[in-house]
């Protein structure tokens, strides 16, 4: 009897979730149309920037900030699924798909980073090698390695998404209709759920997840150093790549929370994505918020006490210089406000409040990226780069974004959102097989006078 009930639950969940790919939320067509127009405008903006040339590096500051924002937001989102899955957390099952679906945005980030790679100055400037982590490497090493790593990360993300979707594709083959059925048949590669197929699937997800994490760290390492730190003479900051990677996780969590909020609101996922998922992510969000301050302060105190000319330059240029309002914005939105909100458990269990905090964090991360990348690209010049540090008279003035910068930012964000929404037409936002797993491994049982949840933890 119990088994019958379970199989009824499985069938209901399967059909329910597969149907979400077929039935579009209200006003979807209008939203897709608006996003498409904005995306096209963004592409035009990129073309205009390319036509203006790569000589004036300061013109590429906001573009670099945009790429960094996309890279740190969308590329980090799959980590929200990977880390808890490896740690065998049971709450993560309903949100792994949302998180790994952000891998498709990696295609936009990778393609959009190509012009930036062309804009990046070579290692040898005026016949002298500038400071970089590529000590004796060939002139265009940062360009080549970054290109390889960002495309590698994208491929790895897509591979991870595909691997974790095979059982769902098989479900589409068995329960879907039309082109989805055909797609399921060809992509599920004969998956019928034998023991060896499940074992191989779990192993592939584990390995690709680990590899994705390592690639993500590598990309953050390269991007933060080559596209920011090494463009500012005298900025030597060993924690900066870690800071960049950590803020990346912070915004990855924020974008996941936002996507979960919309999935409930517009895709009818209320029965699958519930308060425990938000609660668990809110704790991670709180941790990253505190870590933001810790990483910032760890660097700040060393510069503050160091008192050398280059130490003081870093503080004067990146914190209290012309971009002080931007820094304060980042400080409040990435740390102070979310921290103060998220310490309250009641807020951590409130879905709308968490969506608001996620928005604040994303704005904060964007401001932080503007501060770092616009300063770096506008400070760079062939004359200054070989100096021991940037003298105060060479500090750039505050740069406002051009119209093209704004169009590019809106366009790329729209294109990313569009691709994400379109991918929900192919794969359900909540993984079918992991929903089955949850149903199988979790049940409410009576314990003395209270109800408790019994969670199965297979090896």
């Amino acid at each position: 009897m119990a088994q019958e009930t379970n199989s009824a639950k499985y069938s209901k969940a399967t059909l329910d979730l597969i149907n979400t790919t077929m039935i579009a939320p209200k006003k979807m067509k209008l939203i897709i149309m608006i996003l498409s127009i904005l995306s096209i405008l963004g592409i035009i903006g990129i073309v205009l920037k390319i036509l203006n040339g790569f000589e004036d590096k300061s013109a590429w500051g906001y573009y670099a900030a945009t790429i960094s924002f996309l890279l740190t937001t969308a590329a980090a989102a799959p980590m929200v699924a990977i880390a808890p899955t490896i740690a065998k957390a049971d709450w993560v099952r309903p949100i792994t798909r949302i998180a790994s679906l952000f891998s498709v945005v990696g295609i936009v980030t990778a393609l959009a980073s190509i012009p930036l790679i062309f804009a990046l100055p070579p290692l040898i400037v005026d016949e002298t090698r500038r400071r970089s982590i590529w000590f004796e490497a060939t002139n265009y090493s940062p360009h080549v390695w970054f290109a390889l790593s960002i495309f590698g990360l994208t491929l790895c993300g897509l591979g991870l998404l595909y691997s974790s979707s095979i059982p769902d594709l098989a479900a589409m083959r068995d329960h879907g209709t039309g082109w989805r059925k055909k797609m399921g048949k060809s992509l599920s590669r004969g998956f019928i759920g034998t023991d060896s197929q499940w074992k191989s699937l779990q192993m592939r997800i584990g390995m690709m997840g680990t590899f994705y994490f390592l690639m993500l760290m590598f990309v953050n390492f390269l991007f933060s150093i080559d596209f920011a730190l090494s463009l500012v003479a005298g900025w030597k900051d060993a924690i900066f790549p870690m800071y960049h990677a950590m803020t990346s996780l912070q915004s990855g969590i924020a974008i996941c929370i936002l996507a979960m909020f919309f999935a409930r609101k517009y895709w009818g996922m209320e029965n699958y994505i519930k308060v425990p998922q938000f609660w668990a992510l809110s704790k991670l969000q709180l941790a990253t918020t505190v870590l933001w301050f810790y990483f910032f302060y760890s660097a700040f105190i060393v510069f503050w006490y160091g008192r050398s000319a280059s130490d003081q330059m870093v503080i004067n240029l990146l914190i209290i210089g012309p971009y002080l309002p931007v820094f304060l914005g980042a400080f409040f939105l990435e740390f102070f406000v979310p921290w103060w909100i998220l310490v309250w458990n009641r807020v951590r269990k409130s879905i709308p409040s968490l969506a608001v905090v996620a928005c604040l964090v994303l704005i904060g991360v964007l401001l932080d990226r503007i501060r770092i990348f616009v300063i770096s690209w506008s400070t760079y010049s062939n004359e200054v780069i070989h100096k021991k540090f940037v003298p105060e008279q060479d500090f750039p003035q505050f740069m406002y974004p051009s119209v093209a910068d704004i169009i590019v930012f809106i366009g790329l964000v729209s294109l990313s959102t569009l691709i994400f929404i379109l991918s929900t037409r192919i794969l359900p936002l909540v993984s079918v097989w992991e929903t089955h797993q949850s149903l199988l491994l979790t049940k409410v049982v009576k314990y003395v006078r209270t109800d408790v949840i019994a969670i199965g933890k297979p090896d």
Partner: protein
Amino acid sequence: MQQRRKLDQKQINQELLSGNLKTPKWYIPTMLFLGFFVVTGFATILYMFNKGLGVTGLSRPVYWGLFITTFVFWVGISHAGIMISAILRLTQAEWRRPVTRAAELLTVFSLLTALFFPLMHAGRPWRIVYWLMPYDFARGIWPNVRSPLFWDPIAIGTYLTGSTLFLYIALIPDLAVLRDRTTGWQKVFYTILALGWRGNPRQWLLQAVAGILLSALMLPIFVSVHSIVSWDFAITPSVEGWHSTIFAPYFVIGAVHSGVSAVVTMMALMRWLWKWNNHIRPEHFDALARLLIVVATAWLGCTFLELIFSVYGREAPEIALRELMIFTWPWNLLFIIFLLTGYIIPVGFWIFKKARNNIVIMFWTSILVNVGMWLERFLIIVPGLARKQPFTFTWEAYTPSLVEWYILVWSFAWVSFLMLLFARFFPLIPLFETKESQVFTSETKIGRATVPVIYREED
């Protein structure tokens, strides 16, 4: 594989109180052996006080040597307690239960031991009293509150107080069990310490709340302690190799690496000495090893960043220091041993499940980690001071004297002695946690597989 055995409360009491209610055969010889080193170690310290720091290898310009290295090492070990108890408690990791008490204990005793070293290093430690009181207001000299050397005792003192409280609160229910099973002076002793514990619902609630609150409050202290220790070095621009922004997280992650490894060593010893095979099982070693792989890899990442950014600036003295450290005898040998023992050998073993479940391998690899971590601190502190700099009028390599080595040996004997002394009077594995674990865990049949189950209260 299921390693867990169903135990009734009587059996748990019998097994876990066996060392407290009667003295094991090996206990007195071991205490005598350790006691010899403790007594002779204290005698050596007194000898050093009498003769002065001339009996050590310390000389200009290497003023910080083995004592400060060992101070940092023991502060690092102390990170085991909060990592295991607080973080794993907050993340509800079920496997933490048998390990928590020993880890908290290690924190308290290693902090106590760490405090000895700066005092000894001062040469005439009684003069430190003048630094505190009576304070010389007449001359208008104030302590430099901006110095991390001032923050150190405050952070460590707070950490020690908090850790002791943490240990004590978790001990109260077990003290009541001992109170009810002893007679004479022991009963009086346990009665006083048990603070009238009867195990009523209100007391359990307060105890649980106190545990969670202390866990959350101890976390920032946990991070601050080793960060502040790292700033003793990092804010000093005059010593090459020290002025690095990554030092704070690098030290904290390194501390967790060495602390958790020390817990593994201790767990193996506890299993072998008290024959607690039912309580400390291979699955616990497996879980700790998996945690250690992550921590060790993050630590290696920090090591890499620290090294790469030390030569990033292409400053001749920094490059010379790294050449000395990595390529010059005998530092190169120490550097190789440090890398091999700190990461390559242990993690090389831990990636295999068989090795993670083999207690002998876990025991020896955890010891290797701490050999590596001690060397890491030595390599951070000494070469930077020992290398000739433009304005040092005297320099020489540092060789620790026999007195210093003996005091190092004493510190290990002292911590082990204190641990064993504690184990004679208090249970090393929390009884109530073990009983709670028996209640909160079970197993269920899913298909043909038997799956472990844990119970959680509904959120």
